[in-house]
């Protein structure tokens, strides 16, 4: 191929280059105008790196001059934008990264001026808040890799959350709650699988039905039985924090990763396990083949329907675990609609993570970060109405999805029923 062809730049590419350049410059200016001008010179922002009650070795806190830091961030954004307009790089990932980094850092510097902000605390809560999101995302990954769409994760998690707390309270054993949540998740997913594989019901319709049913059923049970029964049905306690010896002593990383409860650890283990299973075992090879080209798998004697059943049901069980997080893994009681869209955000994490477990975890952490940022900022009492802060995770979801959707490639047969 001749090299001259490479020089042809399409109009859409040019437009994208200008778009990114301008956005970066605008963000740089906004950083300067909003945060920079509202930060007095000499104000120091303190970022706490220790967590009270944690086992980690103490390290000194990070103290930064707020205004200088903000100006530095603004300068980086503007320079990156100008460079982009002048030369243009192709990596939109880097540009988005710079955009997010400069904005978030200067935002934090501004919010933490003259105050102390616990960075470790926020990272730790990011990991915790990412847990139900990544479990939902893993459910999506495992189902859609076998080409079955399941957007009923939200409903599954809600029902699992409720079952978990009821069974755990009645039996007085949290593990009973955990197992029933996983079981109910698997059962509902099995119903979804049966409908869409056996009867070729539209996959979206079937899973929307699960969401509606989940919301309705849990609300009914909650108001009809749980509220009147009070503590006899709806007070299970939660899994205790387990500190991993030695590892939990690492500063910053220790409290963030190695001082969590069972559900959080299970989520991390599942991410790694799923990655290995998907790419290094026969089951994973077959799953990917079934999701990409089911007919090819079929002609080689792979049972397409069985693979899909297994994956969708396993996915449902993972979503069930995610549901358990909300009650027995977090607050010990059930409230209506307490999943608050985490199942859907999980699907966004799956797409952003390109249907890959590790990628899904990375994007879940971003959503978890947005979620915990919102909580911490309310504590700092910054002059932004808390209603707006509450929107943060959902706004991040929308921004990420608009930027990514269309570029991420789903499994080729995703959502299509298989006919022999």
């Amino acid at each position: 191929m001749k090299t001259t062809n490479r020089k042809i730049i399409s109009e859409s590419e040019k437009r994208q280059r200008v778009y990114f350049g301008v956005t970066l410059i605008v963000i740089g200016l906004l950083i300067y105008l909003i945060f920079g001008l509202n930060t007095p010179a000499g104000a120091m922002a303190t970022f706490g790196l220790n967590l009270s009650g944690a086992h980690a070795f103490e390290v000194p806190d990070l103290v930064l001059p707020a205004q200088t830091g903000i100006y530095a961030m603004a300068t980086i954004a503007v320079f990156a934008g100008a460079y982009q307009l002048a030369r243009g790089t192709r990596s939109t990932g880097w540009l988005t990264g710079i955009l997010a980094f400069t904005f978030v850092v200067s935002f934090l510097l501004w919010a933490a001026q003259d105050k102390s902000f616990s960075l470790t605390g926020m990272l730790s809560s990011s990991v915790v808040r990412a847990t139900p999101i990544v479990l939902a995302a893993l459910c999506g990954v495992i189902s859609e890799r076998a080409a079955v769409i399941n957007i009923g994760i939200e409903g599954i998690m809600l029902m699992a959350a409720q079952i978990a707390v009821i069974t755990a309270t009645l039996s007085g054993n949290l593990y009973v709650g955990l197992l029933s949540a996983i079981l109910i998740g698997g059962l509902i997913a099995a119903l979804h699988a049966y409908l869409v594989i056996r009867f070729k019901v539209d996959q979206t319709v079937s899973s929307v039905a699960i969401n509606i049913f989940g919301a309705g059923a849990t609300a009914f049970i909650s108001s009809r039985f749980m509220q009147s029964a009070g503590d006899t049905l709806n007070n299970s306690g939660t899994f205790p924090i387990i500190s991993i010896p030695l590892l939990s002593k690492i500063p910053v990383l220790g409290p963030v990763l190695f001082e969590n409860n069972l559900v959080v650890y299970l989520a991390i283990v599942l991410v790694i396990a799923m990655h290995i299973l998907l790419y290094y075992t026969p089951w994973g090879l077959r799953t990917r083949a079934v999701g990409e080209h089911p007919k090819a798998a079929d002609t080689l004697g792979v049972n397409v329907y069985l693979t899909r059943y297994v994956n969708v049901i396993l996915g449902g069980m993972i979503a069930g675990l995610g549901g358990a997080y909300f009650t027995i893994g977090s607050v010990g009681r059930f409230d209506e609609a307490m999943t608050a869209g985490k199942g859907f955000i999980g699907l966004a994490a799956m797409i952003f993570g390109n249907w890959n477990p590790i990628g899904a975890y990375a994007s879940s952490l971003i959503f978890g970060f947005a979620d915990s940022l919102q909580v911490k900022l309310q504590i700092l009492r910054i002059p932004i109405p808390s209603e707006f802060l509450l929107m943060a995770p959902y706004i991040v979801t929308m921004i990420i999805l608009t930027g990514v959707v269309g570029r991420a490639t789903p499994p080729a047969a995703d959502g299509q029923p298989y006919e022999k």
Partner: protein
Amino acid sequence: MTNVLELRGITKRFPGVLANDQISIALREGKILALLGENGAGKSTLMNILYGLYQPDEGEIIVRGQKVDIHGPNDAIAQGIGMVHQHFMLVPVMTVTENVMLGIEPTRNRVFLDKEKVAKRIREISDQYGLEVDPQAYIKDLPVGIQQRVEIIKVLYRQADILILDEPTAVLTPQEVEGLFKIIDTLIKSGKSIIFITHKLKEVLAVADDITVLRLGKVVGSIDPKEATSEILATMMVGRDVNLVVQKENAKPAGPVLVVENLYVRDERQHMTVQGVSFEVRQGEVLGLAGVQGNGQTELVYALTGLLPIDAGSIHLLGESIRHAPPRKILERGVAHIPEDRQRHGLILSFPIHDNMMLCTYYQPPFARGIALQPAPIFSNAEELVKQYDVRTPNIYVNAGTLSGGNQQKVIVAREFSRPIKLLVASQPTRGLDVGSIEYIHKQIIKKRDEGCGVLVVSSELDEILALSDRIAVIYKGQIMAIVDANTATKEQLGLLMAGVHLSETSNKN
């Protein structure tokens, strides 16, 4: 000589269709049996039964003298039967190794895929049969000819000694076909037996040891290739005498209808698949665009008909730029399009024939008045076209999806030709059609040419290109390799151009 495989009295019924009717065939050990028949003759059904994808209603399968039951691909594989499918059964985003091992994965520690072991075996098979391929390559990066090798390796990896090749040459260049025939030769020498399914007469005569011809689900007869000729085989296939050569006079080209200059187009995945294409189509001539599938033809045609945006370059229709014109504008200026995928882009299968017959002009009188459709003219238009273009259908009210491929194509041709057109863009106009329909469609295209219409025929079938064209452009990797005169062009020359080999003597003959 013993029969390694026999099918006796195989019958398969689908709702409303008798796909196989008491079919019996025999494959001799170490020989090539050619199974010849038109699309819809029941070849693929028969092979799918043999491979366990369908169950026969009657009949038996005998492998090496033993009657066997084949309930799925696994049973077939266990009997040493392997199939190379017409549409390759390969996962594009996986490597050669992963594709080969799928379904019978060897493992280390009983858990982890043992890719090295498979890759080693692939190299052994490559060496043994001359099937050069890189086990680590991704399928999506490989040319079609190599993908076919991977399919053959897949079969050999499963230790098949009876190979079914389903229309193996449909997607290959003439040179790749030569390569395939060499591979087939090596396979036979090492003791394999092969069933070769095709509808191409010349290939049958070139490779087969035995020929069995199917028509409408029945065995018409078997013939020794030494006694057979193309004409005899065609008559057996179609059931009547066919004219294999398109009768046409020399073209009398006039001024240009379509002028394309330095055109660049991206496909939906943003790959630049058309890279600086220039050509013109003149009134009263057929320009054939030859090339192996996937070299930018599809995107080029989409750009010409307004279905894909243009990255750079210009397109002029009768002197007017249609660079940014929407499809309807382009249609209204007299472009007719016979799309490559007739079922997805040419027809609405769930609409009745009478609606399909006016899809380009439904908003104009007489079919519409104001916002209301006018049933009477719609029906009479359809009745007339069905008669004129010999569409075989019970009536005009049945859905287009119920027609056979040939009749669906006739509906499209009828619709497109029923309005005044200046340029006809026909993409793979006879793909998958039976010999009779091909004959008919070709005649219609030549008729349009003789009426002074400019015609662009895009086809991956060289025979079709040679039969119809007055000039031939060859496209390779999105670029026109050369434009040659059809009267002097040879198949070999075109084949080399299609494979990307520049010929200095051909490129001058513009």
